[in-house]
């Protein structure tokens, strides 16, 4: 599915705002024709990266290329991009119907029938002033524009604030079926990692402005697991040095350690030592990799409770 030119390529990309470094030496490649998750905590630099990639901001250092070209002030690139952001502003008097009638001026692949079907799916009132829409309805406007524009490169930056679980599922389903019919490049930035994990082909994780994970999603599955067993056995397993410890908990004589770097050899070693291996989700892996809880809404209560009593054995990068 990938073509020769990647959809996005950055090299040493750095963005500073005064003394603050928002992006620090970011080098990533996002293949064309993929759904990529751009994940990380609030303030990690995800939105800054998308601003640079969509030509709304200039790099301080390094380079960003979209479809092989610099995006800033480059109409031939920018016309192929849809950027759906949480904080999208509309003219004061606008109603959703005005958004949908003006969208085809900007997106040559705009499908009005698909947009109309999505309006029904999300039960969006077309004639209400945008200012009077609920938060979820406002998010639906963005999601509809992002899907029906079928832009070769679409960014969804936290697109669904206020959308309920049913509406989010509609978004995922429509995205998957339409993406299958009209392959394109989609970059999805979200805190709801568990919900989107299976949709992703590629995962990029940013923490404090740096890329800490850039990998095909399938390679991440099974790479991390919790190793559970008698403390002495677990410690002996860890001492063999084949895995990296991300998180450790103990209860009585039992230790449960979240480790990264599992392969067939390590798995066999653990099982032969009588240890249990419990899979962890992409979300758990990223929470531990980014040093805490992603945000309050995404973190289940149990996770927060576990954190209060946590003891970190391994070094974080």
């Amino acid at each position, binding site marked *: 599915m990938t073509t020769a030119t990647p959809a996005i390529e950055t090299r040493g990309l750095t963005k500073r705002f005064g003394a603050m470094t928002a992006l620090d030496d970011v080098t990533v490649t996002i293949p064309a024709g993929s759904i990529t998750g751009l994940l990380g905590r609030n303030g990690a630099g995800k939105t800054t990266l998308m601003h640079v990639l969509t030509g709304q901001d200039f790099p301080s250092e390094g380079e960003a290329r979209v479809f092989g070209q610099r995006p800033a002030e480059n109409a031939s690139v920018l016309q192929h991009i849809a950027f759906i952001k949480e904080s999208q502003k509309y003219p004061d008097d606008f109603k959703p119907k005005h958004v949908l009638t003006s969208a085809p001026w900007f997106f040559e692949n705009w499908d009005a029938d698909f947009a109309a079907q999505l309006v029904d799916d999300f039960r969006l009132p077309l004639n209400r002033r945008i200012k009077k829409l609920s938060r979820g309805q406002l998010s639906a406007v963005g999601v509809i524009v992002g899907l029906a524009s079928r832009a070769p490169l679409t960014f969804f930056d936290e697109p669904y604030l206020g959308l309920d679980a049913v509406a989010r599922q509609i978004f995922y389903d429509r995205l998957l079926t339409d993406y299958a019919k009209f392959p394109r490049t989609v970059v999805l930035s979200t805190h709801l990692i568990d919900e989107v994990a299976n949709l992703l082909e590629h995962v990029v994780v940013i923490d404090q402005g740096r890329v800490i994970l850039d990998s095909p999603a399938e390679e991440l*599955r099974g790479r991390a697991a919790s190793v559970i067993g008698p403390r002495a056995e677990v410690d002996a397993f860890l001492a063999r040095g084949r895995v990296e410890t991300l998180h450790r908990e103990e209860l009585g004589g039992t230790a449960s350690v979240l480790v990264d770097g599992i392969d067939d050899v390590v798995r066999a070693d653990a099982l032969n030592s009588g240890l249990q291996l419990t899979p962890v989700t992409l979300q758990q892996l990223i929470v531990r990799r980014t040093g805490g809880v992603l945000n309050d809404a995404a973190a289940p209560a149990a996770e927060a409770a576990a954190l209060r009593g946590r003891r970190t054995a391994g070094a974080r990068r």
Partner: protein
Amino acid sequence: MIDEGKPIFLQIAEQIENDIIEGALAEESQVPSTNEFAAFHRINPATAGKGVNLLVDEGVLYKKRGIGMFVATGARDVLITKRRTQFVDDYVRPLLTEAAKLGIDPRTLSGLIQDASAEASAEPAPSRAHG
């Protein structure tokens, strides 16, 4: 239906294999398209395609140009042979490990298996009897 901790494409391949072994997908019948698998399991189409292609590489499925994917003749026997070799690793060894932990020797274990098997054939209903 999709488990954590295991590549999704392997799970897709295994589910197709199960359907072939159980007869839900007959030999020479057409299998769903990659996009249908993706929509049904709510997974990325490229991932579903990787699972299907794995079975094409193994000769279990074959492609009819412009029509779709089909189950190869003889696929069921091939899969059953493959699963039988895995059976010892996947089921028998873990069973022996657990039995050893509880002090059940292999002879007693084999007696337990025969008892359970006799019970299962005596009462076809899935509900379990008391004790």
